[in-house]
């Protein structure tokens, strides 16, 4: 089953180049997405057997993130059919600066999308630290061409920053892998292979100094990929310049995969009794990310950049939750799921708004509720979900994290957390509600345009799931999240 999860997207990528017509290619993309989602769903029913000598296996956090990734990819693929259909062939005019540019060939785009999915799947199923690293580096390499889909200088700049900053960060994570190997060589008997179950078993024999240094490098390295401040410099540019479905995947799925790298490192640290060391760092980074995001969301002129900074904020919340430990870890994992689904939906809706209004500036967009009724509703609903308004799921996860902070007596952390959440709520509300309400700037004759199903149904479905999670968490999901949280100590 694991082999199928990995091979299906890769085969799809190869086929993408063989197909001639764009319509066929989009159909193939959706088919592969369905197949992948089906297999991922199958892993909930029956436990997949480890592959490749135990290097590839699915444990609780892996299954959680794999399912989220698969679901998001399916939504993005369905949306992509409508979005790609909207892209005119040949050259087109840039919204902001008016020059002409063309797009990357759709074959390349589809192939890179599928390779991206394969790389993310590799990250979620790998139990070996080195394979995890290979997977994350592969996601960087597969997604850089995706950011450069609209071939102009801004997206090129964003793609270059993304490529270089993430590669440097991930190189540091490789050094962390080597440090971990040194810590695991112990001295007593054979060196422990860098596979998670073996490391957890032999956690008592790991050298503490090297282990701590390794964790630090993992945090900095994978934190760069995840978008933790102050290593987040690539995130706003990349997420705002990429096409919306790519932004959805980057924000929703990729950041989680990077989180998985840190989670694995924390698992080993916790098993070796060094949990407190990691947790302090995580709390610090979490609060810093939230603060930086709060500063940049207030008065943000570009709504896609605002969503990108919101991703930084939520990664901060996640990290804070995991760093608090106990109930906070459960909240963090639950929040990862909620955030992924909501942020992806928001980006997909933002894509609709961008296509309609042809402007990325918050000030230029007015009256979305009137011009695009369904998208407008989803936009407001998504905003409510992302800022943690009940009855959406994010409220529950953020509350759990708050409760964990208060339970541990860390009132300073709790106060800062609430204050920053408030500032971000106000910042985003000004932007989003301003965009949704009012009358459109230029008098548009058409009121309540009929929107293609495929451009709204995926986003709607994602928000519906978040709503459902806010009201009722299915026991099987609850148990998986609890198991993932328990693994983190």
């Amino acid at each position, binding site marked *: 089953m694991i082999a199928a999860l990995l091979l299906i997207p890769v085969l799809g990528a190869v086929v993408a180049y063989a197909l001639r017509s764009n319509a066929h290619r989009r159909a193939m993309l959706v088919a592969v997405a369905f197949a992948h989602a089906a297999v991922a769903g199958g892993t909930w029913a029956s436990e997949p057997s480890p592959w490749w000598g135990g290097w590839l296996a699915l444990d609780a956090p892996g299954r959680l993130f794999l399912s989220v990734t698969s679901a998001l990819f399916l939504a993005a693929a369905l949306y992509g059919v409508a979005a790609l259909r909207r892209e005119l062939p040949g050259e087109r005019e840039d919204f902001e600066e008016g020059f002409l540019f063309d797009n990357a060939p759709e074959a390349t785009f589809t192939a890179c999308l599928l390779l991206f999915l394969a790389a993310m799947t590799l990250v979620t199923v790998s139990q070996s630290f080195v394979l995890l690293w290979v997977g994350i580096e592969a996601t960087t390499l597969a997604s850089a061409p995706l950011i450069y889909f609209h071939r102009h200088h801004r997206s*090129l700049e*964003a793609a270059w920053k993304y490529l270089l900053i993430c590669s440097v960060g991930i190189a540091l994570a490789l050094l962390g892998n080597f440090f971990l190997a*040194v810590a695991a060589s112990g001295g007593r008997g054979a060196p422990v292979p860098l596979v998670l179950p073996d490391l957890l078993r032999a956690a008592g024999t790991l050298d503490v100094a090297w282990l701590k240094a390794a964790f630090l490098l993992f945090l900095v390295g994978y934190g760069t990929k995840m978008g933790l401040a102050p290593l987040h410099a690539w995130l706003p540019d990349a997420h705002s310049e990429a096409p919306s479905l790519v932004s959805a995947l980057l924000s929703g799925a990729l950041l989680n995969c990077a989180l998985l790298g840190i989670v694995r490192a924390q698992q080993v640290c916790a098993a070796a009794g060094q949990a407190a060391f990691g947790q302090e760092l995580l709390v610090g980074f979490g609060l810093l990310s939230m603060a930086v995001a709060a500063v940049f969301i207030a008065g943000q002129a570009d709504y896609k950049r605002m969503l990108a900074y919101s991703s930084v904020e939520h990664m901060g919340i996640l990290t804070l939750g995991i760093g608090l430990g106990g109930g906070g870890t459960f909240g963090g994992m639950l929040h990862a799921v909620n955030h992924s689904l909501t942020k992806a939906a928001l980006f997909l809706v933002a894509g609709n708004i961008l296509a309609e209004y042809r402007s990325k500036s918050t000030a230029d967009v007015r009256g979305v509720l009137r011009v695009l009724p369904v998208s407008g509703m989803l936009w407001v609903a998504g905003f409510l979900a992302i800022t943690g308004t009940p009855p959406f799921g994010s409220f529950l996860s953020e509350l759990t994290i708050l409760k964990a902070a208060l339970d541990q007596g860390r009132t300073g952390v709790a106060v800062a957390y609430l204050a920053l959440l408030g500032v971000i709520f106000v910042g985003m509300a000004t932007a989003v509600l301003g965009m949704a309400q009012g009358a459109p700037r230029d008098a548009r004759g058409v009121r309540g345009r009929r929107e293609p199903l495929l451009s709204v149904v995926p986003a709607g479905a994602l928000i519906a799931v978040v709503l459902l999670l806010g009201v009722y968490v299915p026991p099987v999901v609850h148990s998986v999240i609890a198991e993932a949280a328990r693994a983190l100590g």
Partner: protein
Amino acid sequence: MSDGVDAVLICIVLTSFVLVGASRLGTCIRVVALQGVLLGVLTLAAAESVLSLRAPLLALTIVGLKGAAFPWLLSRAVRDADVRREIEPFVGYKVSLLLATLALAASLWLGARLPRPNPAMSALVVPVALFTIQVGLFIIISRKKALTQVLGYLVMENGIYAFGVGAVEGTPMLLELAVLLDLLVAVFVMGITLFHIRREFNHIDTDQLVALRDWVR
């Protein structure tokens, strides 16, 4: 055995210094190629048993990739990009050399403080690896051209790999090859992006990539 490893490590340090002080792109690419070859020699020198096939094979792969393939890819990028062959640094050459010396001193100090990873290996491995990583990072930050940023990334990877060779034993060959494959694809993608940057911007100065920013100019 340890002398050979020591000599190779010192040569690697010297190449890093030359890289920091060099002013021409061609020189930089050749020095990075030399560093790759030295890394291959280090793999051979640090091998434990003489008879296993693993070390020579790995050394050959590294020399082929880092000593030949990457410099060739980057030279082609330079030629296609038709850029000015002078490196324009943010930090002057003399200051860079002095900073590199400070970094070396700091790495030696740090290497002495960390517990020795592999007692059989020379004590210079950890300091030299840390120094090379710092030099790589410094080159990325302090040089304007996008190509030198890629070179800095390669130097960083060289340093990390030197640490791996010197300090870690028993990594399965498959994983090392996977890492190298990733590196190859990374350089390939970077090369293609460099070509696009040149085509788009007519230069590869990264300090001119400032169109994306938060508050409106």
